[in-house]
Every structure is written in structure tokens, then in C-alpha cells.
């Protein structure tokens, strides 16, 4: 119970931090909107000039729905704590977690979830409006049980993406100044997760390769659960694979942080 109390405070602090920088969050939403804007016009032009009604396995309404949802879901699962971890290790702030009765992993996880909650609520609100609009104007079907399944897969996707970036952030033990590399990793993972275009765009070989990696389970898979391209059985299978990746990333993160923290020298602490 005390354990829960301790980390619920961390969660609360994360929540307050997210509310503190509201303008920053709204600006980040604008930055999410511009690729959606460009891609909407691009896909409209492609479908208008194509002789086939289906391009890359998607109809025009499906592709527009994917574009909108990818922009928003990628924003929901997005991290940012890796830069804070880099600073903690670089400036020696990590030392306090070695002596205080607070674990660094649960501290980061609860802070991240606390920060995510208000942003997630707002983006999900926007997503509902977008889906209702797509339903009214383009006839995209909305099913209640798919919405519930989507929320479940999205929750797992948020945790999975946290763990993926928690693994990457361990590199800060080996390389002190790593901010630019994090940005490069972030961009590439967005691309690999289907956060820009559906993975079918890049061909079957790319899809086969992405099946071996966890990234597609953070954006591409939850979207396809919602838009009805995945059957019920495939949805359940996907949840299992997501859970397996979460366990695998936990093990990898534990190993990397155990090895990495041995190299920690508390510079500046």
C-alpha cells in the first residue's frame, strides 16, 4: 500500500507537469496536424488520378481514416522522458535514486503515465470527433466493440513504447551526449511503426521485417484494430504478441540498465 502511495504521488506530479505546459502541448498538436494536412491532399490526389479504387489495399476513406488516426495515435504513444534520463545520468541526478527508497524504473513509468493521461484524454476526444466526421462524410463504419479493443491495444501500445525507449535510453550510460541520436531513433521508429504511412506502402518485404520487430504494435496495429481491417482472432493474437513484446522489452531493459548502471560515475552529482 505504501508502495502504491509513493508512486501515485509520482503519477500526480507527472499529471501536473502535463497540465503546466498546456500551450506547449497545443503547439505539439499543431505539429501533428501538418503531416496529416499534407498527406490528406496527397492521398486525395493519388486516388483521384488512380484508375483503381483500392491503393495499397486501402480504399480512399480507409486511407484517410488511417492518416488521421496515425497522426493522433503516434502523438499518444510518443515519449520524451529519454532526454530527462540522459540529463539525470549526465548531471549525476541519477545518484539520488541509488540511495533513496524509490526505484528509477517505476518512478519513470508512473511519471510518464501521469503525463500521458491528460494529453491522451484530449487526443482521444479529438479522435472521436474525427471518427464521427469520417463516419458522417466518408461512411467509415464505427463498431463499439472495436472501440473497446482499440483502447485496450492502445494502453498496451503506450506501455510498449515506454519500454522500447527505456531500453534505448540506457545508451546514455555509455555515451553522455546522446540527444540528437534519440531524435533520429524517434523519427525512424515512427516510420517503422506506421505512424506516417501504412506499412503496406513499403512492400511485402518491409512488412515481413516489421513483423519481427515490436514497433508496428505501437501505432499500425491499434489503428487496424479500430478501422476493422483485423479480424477478432487477429486482434486477440495481436494483444498476445504485444504482451510478449512488453515482457521481452522488460527483460532487455532490466539487463541493459543493470550493465549500464555499473558504468555510472555520478559526474556532477
Amino acid at each position: 500500500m505504501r508502495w502504491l502511495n509513493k508512486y501515485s504521488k509520482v503519477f500526480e506530479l507527472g499529471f501536473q507537469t502535463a497540465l503546466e505546459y498546456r500551450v506547449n502541448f497545443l503547439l505539439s498538436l499543431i505539429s501533428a496536424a501538418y503531416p496529416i494536412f499534407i498527406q490528406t491532399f496527397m492521398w486525395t490526389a493519388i486516388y483521384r488520378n488512380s484508375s483503381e479504387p483500392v491503393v495499397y489495399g486501402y480504399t480512399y476513406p480507409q486511407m484517410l481514416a488511417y492518416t488521421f488516426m496515425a497522426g493522433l495515435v503516434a502523438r499518444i504513444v510518443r515519449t520524451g522522458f529519454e532526454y530527462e534520463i540522459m540529463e539525470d545520468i549526465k548531471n549525476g541526478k541519477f545518484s539520488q535514486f541509488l540511495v533513496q527508497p524509490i526505484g528509477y524504473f517505476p518512478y519513470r513509468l508512473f511519471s510518464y503515465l501521469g503525463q500521458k493521461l491528460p494529453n491522451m484524454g484530449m487526443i482521444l476526444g479529438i479522435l472521436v470527433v474525427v471518427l464521427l466526421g469520417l463516419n458522417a462524410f466518408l461512411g467509415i463504419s464505427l463498431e463499439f466493440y472495436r472501440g473497446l479493443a482499440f483502447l485496450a491495444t492502445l494502453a498496451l501500445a503506450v506501455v510498449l513504447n515506454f519500454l522500447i525507449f527505456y531500453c534505448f535510453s540506457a545508451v546514455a550510460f555509455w555515451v553522455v551526449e546522446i540527444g540528437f541520436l534519440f531524435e533520429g531513433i524517434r523519427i525512424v521508429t515512427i516510420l517503422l511503426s506506421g505512424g506516417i504511412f501504412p506499412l503496406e506502402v513499403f512492400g511485402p518485404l518491409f512488412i515481413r521485417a516489421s513483423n519481427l520487430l515490436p514497433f508496428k504494435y505501437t501505432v499500425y496495429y491499434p489503428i487496424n484494430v479500430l478501422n476493422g481491417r483485423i479480424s477478432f482472432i487477429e486482434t486477440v493474437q495481436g494483444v498476445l504478441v504485444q504482451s510478449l513484446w512488453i515482457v521481452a522489452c522488460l527483460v532487455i531493459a532490466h539487463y541493459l540498465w543493470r550493465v549500464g548502471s555499473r558504468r555510472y560515475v555520478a559526474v556532477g552529482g
Partner: protein
Amino acid sequence: MRAIIREIKKHILIYSLFIKNSLMAQMEYRFNFIGNMAMETGYLFVKLSYVVVVYRSGVEINGLSPDEILLFIGTFVTLTACYAGLFMLNNFRLRLKIRDGELDLLMTKPVSLQFMVTLRMTDMTIFAVDAIAGLIIVAVAWARLSIPLNLVTVGGYAGFMIISVLVSYSLFLLPQILSFWLINTSAIAEVSDLFWDFNNMPMDIYPRWIQQLGIFVLPIFVISNFPSMFVLQRMPPVYLAWATTLPIVLLVILRRLWKQGLKNYNSASS
């Protein structure tokens, strides 16, 4: 006339020193240099993903073949080298320099203050990654489209690239000058920077009214569309006239606004 040439020579020499200093500062932290390269390569992959979409669909978009679109994207990547590598850092830091009173010392130098402040920092990693990739993409598209290599095509393309660089310098610096009047313009800086990526695809994907808006009102499309449009012989005379007038108009407005802003500078923190 001789005095003007001497001034230009002096500024070119100083600019080469700016580049050298920035490069030396970047090379000091080698992994940062590699990380920076990785970041820009990541962004490049995103730009190239649009090429994949266009080629694999095999569709002509509003009269533009995939090879023609490749030329537009290559031009955009090359110009990103200039914007992100030569201007962006200075634009972002301008408001900090004004806020912290850093212009005081620079004002005393016998060199143009605008030149010192807006071109001081360069990022040669970003510049190199985008310039090399962009020029390769342009060369591939050029060859696939069998565009003749002569003085008119190459000279015209280069001329329009220079116009694009001047427009991007002026257009993206203009909102930052508001820092002379407003204390915090970070939001303006971030939002205006996003406009750059509207050139990721040719303007032909947008409806006519957005195209006109992006050429004559907020001339963002002039930047990466005009060089390719000229080479592909898709440029109407009115655009040609606008392309030659616009950089002069923007530079004059920029200069006047800069001088006006300087009058408002009060070196509060120093």
C-alpha cells in the same frame, strides 16, 4: 563600387570563418556529430518515404509523373540543407540574443549586425547530409526525365535555387524579428518552422486556391517548386515575374523591419 566589392569580399571571408568555427565546435564532441548525422538521416528517411509512396503507386498526380515528383522532392531536400544547415539555428537563437542583451557587443563590430546575428551559426552535418542526398536525388530525376544538360536548364535551375535560398532566408527570419517587440516568441518560431515541410510534395497536390495562397500571400511554395517547374517547362510567365520580384521585396521588407526592430532594442538584461 570598389568599396562595395571590398565589403562583399570581407563578408565572404568572415562567413567562411563562421563556417570553420561552427564546424570546429561541432567536431569537439564527436559522438554529438555522429548523433546529429543520425538525426538528419532519420528525417531524410521520412522525406524519402514520400518518394516510395509515389513510385510504388505508379500514379501520375495531377499531370506530374513519379520521376517529375522525384525532382521536386530532391529540390526540397537540397534546399532543406540551406535552411536547416545555414539559417534555422540563427533564427531560433535570435529571440534569446535579443532577450539576453547579446546584441550589445555585436553592434560594436565593423560588420553588418544583421549578417553577424542571422548567419553566425551553421550546422555542417545537416547541410552535408541533405545537400549530398538532395543533389543525388535531383541528378537521378534529371537523368530519368532526360532533361538536357545545357546553360539554360542548369543555369536556370541554379538561378531559381538562389532565389529560393533568398526567399527562405527572408521569409523564415521575418517572424523572428517580432522578438524585438515581444518578449517570448518561441511559439511563433516553432509554428513558422513547421511551414517548411509544406514543400515536401509539389504544390500540385493542393487545390488551386491553396496554391495561389502559397505563392502570392505566404510565398512558401515559391521555395521548392519554382526551380523544378522551370526545368520541367511548367512555369507560367506570371510566376516567372513574381520569382524575380519576390526576393527583392522580401529583402527590403526584412531590412526595414530589422532596422525598425533595432530601434526598439533596449538591451534590458546586460
